[in-house]
Every structure is written in structure tokens, then in C-alpha cells.
């Protein structure tokens, strides 16, 4: 079971090239999860206990906007990561997360992984570098969305 999980982690694009020793070390923080289509995965303000590496399906990051309803800010596809609130105090979700399609993912316990990163700073640095890249990509996408490129003035 653990061996199978190790293989799944190693095959996810986020972990490509990561030292096998590190993957073995963190496998205990991970589990396989499934979400039904339409299922809420987390809600704004809830403690960010887990984060997710998508394997199948699609997850939307949403925000309830008064008088406008539920706005989808971004969707996350297989091979991508949902959540970094577990990494930053106060460790609470900033948005809602919902499975737009039936979704399979690897869920990591954020506290468990943070403890492992404290224990092994090489691992911590490796994880942080990879998450920085994810955060940077999301920031770039958000900036492009803010530009409203296809508006009339474009």
C-alpha cells in the first residue's frame, strides 16, 4: 500500500526529480482521496489541514460574492496542486474549493509535512522551491486575468 503510494507520489509532476529518500520520508503524510462531482473540498476560513495533488478531474477555487453569487476564480487540472494555505500562517483556506468533476487526488497532511520539513531542512528547501514555483505561476495567471486582455480596450 505504502509502496504504491510512493510510486504515485514519484509519478506526479510536482515531485519529478525529487530524491527517492525524501519521497520515502514524506509518504506517511499522504493518502489517496476521491471527491464526487460538485463536492465541496474546503471552505473559506476553515483550517487548511490538507492540500492536494490532482491526479484526475478538476477542482475550482471559488469565492461567494454578495449579489453576484459564486464566482470561479481559477480551476486546477491533473498534475497541478491545490492549496498552499497549510504553509502560511494562519493556516486557513482563503477560498472555497470544489470538485467540478469527479476527482482523484493525493492529499497531504500539512502539519505532518511541515514537521518533516523542520526535521530535514534539505527536504524543506526542496518543497519550498517547488511551492514557490506554483505560487509564482498562480500570481502570473492572476495578473493576466486582471488585465482583462479580451476587453474592448485590448
Amino acid at each position, binding site marked *: 500500500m505504502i509502496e504504491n503510494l510512493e510510486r504515485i507520489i514519484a509519478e506526479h509532476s510536482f515531485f519529478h526529480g525529487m530524491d527517492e529518500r525524501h519521497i520515502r520520508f514524506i509518504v506517511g503524510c499522504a493518502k489517496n482521496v476521491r471527491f464526487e462531482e460538485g463536492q465541496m473540498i474546503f471552505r473559506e476560513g476553515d483550517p487548511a489541514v490538507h492540500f492536494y495533488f490532482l491526479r484526475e478531474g*478538476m477542482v*475550482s477555487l*471559488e469565492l461567494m460574492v454578495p449579489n*453576484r*453569487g*459564486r*464566482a*470561479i*476564480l*481559477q*480551476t486546477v*487540472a491533473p*498534475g497541478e496542486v491545490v492549496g498552499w494555505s497549510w504553509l502560511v500562517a494562519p493556516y486557513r483556506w482563503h477560498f472555497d474549493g470544489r470538485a*467540478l*468533476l469527479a476527482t482523484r487526488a493525493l492529499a497531504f497532511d500539512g502539519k505532518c509535512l511541515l514537521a518533516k520539513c523542520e526535521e530535514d531542512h534539505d527536504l524543506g528547501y526542496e518543497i519550498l522551491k517547488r511551492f514557490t514555483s506554483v505560487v509564482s*505561476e498562480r500570481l*502570473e*495567471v492572476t495578473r*493576466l*486575468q486582471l*488585465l*482583462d*486582455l*479580451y*476587453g*474592448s480596450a*485590448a
Partner: protein
Amino acid sequence: MIPRPFRIQSVRKETADTFTLDLKSADDGRPGAFAPGQFNMLYVFGVGEVPISISSDPRDGSTLKHTTRAVGTVTKALERLKKGDTVGIRGPFGSSWPVEEARGRDCVIVAGGIGLAPLRSALYFLLASRESYQKIVLLYGARTPEDILYRPELERWRSQFDLDVRVTVDRAGHEWRGPVGVVPALVRRAGFDPANATAMVCGPEVMLRFTVRELENRGMDHRHIYISMERNMKCAIGFCGHCQFGPTFVCKDGPVFGYDRIAPILGKAEV
């Protein structure tokens, strides 16, 4: 070059601010040959002339289609025209998409907003010779679900087994079931062989630059990336200089450029 008269067969509303004109030649009934990616100058008598890409099937010898957005004086006048009205057309002008050079390769078509219009002709061409190409991937980004151009056609293409169509929108409400995000992000997710792919990209210039960056990240060579540029075109024959872009004229040397040719000047504020 004197404009030829073309009669409007229909004006079809595509989205809130875009429409398609179906045109037939008023003299010999034939629209004239063109290559995918080329444009015509459309003349609204008494108002003015505007460059618009051809979005019809290059093999269709009867009807010429132009899709545009009503934003300026001429395009707003075009939108007000009705079936049976006449417009003047000069063209076709400019360079075209490398549909012949792409034979035997994967084709990655990336469009943003109204940028899908000049790429539709290329798609018709590729699909008509489907066996000559490897994977064909269409990545399209629009502002909202309501702004998706050629929606029935995109839905039909998506249902084909030999075409990978991915559509994303910049913003959406809960009724939208597809991806939300910008079109360059789709490049990361698309399945194609970067070593044997030709990319054709059209959309707002910022979108072009970020899309090219993602194609580079996937390992694509600049020589196989083509982009369609937009500048203020007036004469369409490289004479007036309005559309000068560094050492080139977009109307004559473009609008489709190999990225290797314009990479050093794309995105430079001084150019």
C-alpha cells in the same frame, strides 16, 4: 487597387460585441482565392476602410466570411449593415499560417478572444487534410463563457476524436463547468510533442508573449512558432508605413510572422 463590390448574404451575431459577415462577390460571384491567415480591407462606403482577417474555409469557392468586433467607427458601421447591402473589398493581403510546412507534425493552435477568427481558416484547412498531420490541439481562451466565439463549431470540433479542443475563460460563474484561467496555462496541460510541433498563435499581444513563453518552456523551437500580429493598417501594401513594426510592415511581411524573426522586437515599448 480598386475595391471589388461584395454583397452581404447574412450578418450573424456571434457574441455581444462580435459578428460575422457572409459575403458574395457582386460581380462574378466568386470570392477569390486566399490562404489561411490572410486579411482583406473592408470598405464601408462613405465611412472608411478597415483590415479584417478572413475566417472562412479557404476551399469554399462561394462565400467569404469575416468576423470582427464592433469597436471603431468602421466596424460599428459594418455591424449596422444588412443582408443585400454592399461593401467594397480589397485583398487578400499578407502572409499566411504555415499549414503546408506543418504537414507531418503536431499542430498547436492557440487563440485568445477574437484571435480565433483568423485561425479558423487554418483549422478548416488542417481538418480537410487531417491524415497529413499528427495531433491537432486547439487551445482557446475567452473573457467569459458568453464571449466564446464560434461556440457551436467548437462544440462540434470537441466531439471529434481526432482533435483536442480545450477552452478556458478568464472569469465565470458557477454555471460554467470548464476550466477558468488564462490560455497560456492550457499550453502546460496540452498533449503534444514539442520536438515535432508547429504552433500558430493569435490574440492580444500580451497573450501572445505569455503563450510563446509557455511554448518555450515546453521545449519548442522559435522556428516552429508562428504568431499573427496586429497593427494599425491603412494601405495594406506596405506603402503608407502606418503598420511599421521594427524593420517590417505588418500588412505586407505579416500579419503572420515566424517568431524567430520578430522575437527581438516583440514586447519592446519603443517598437
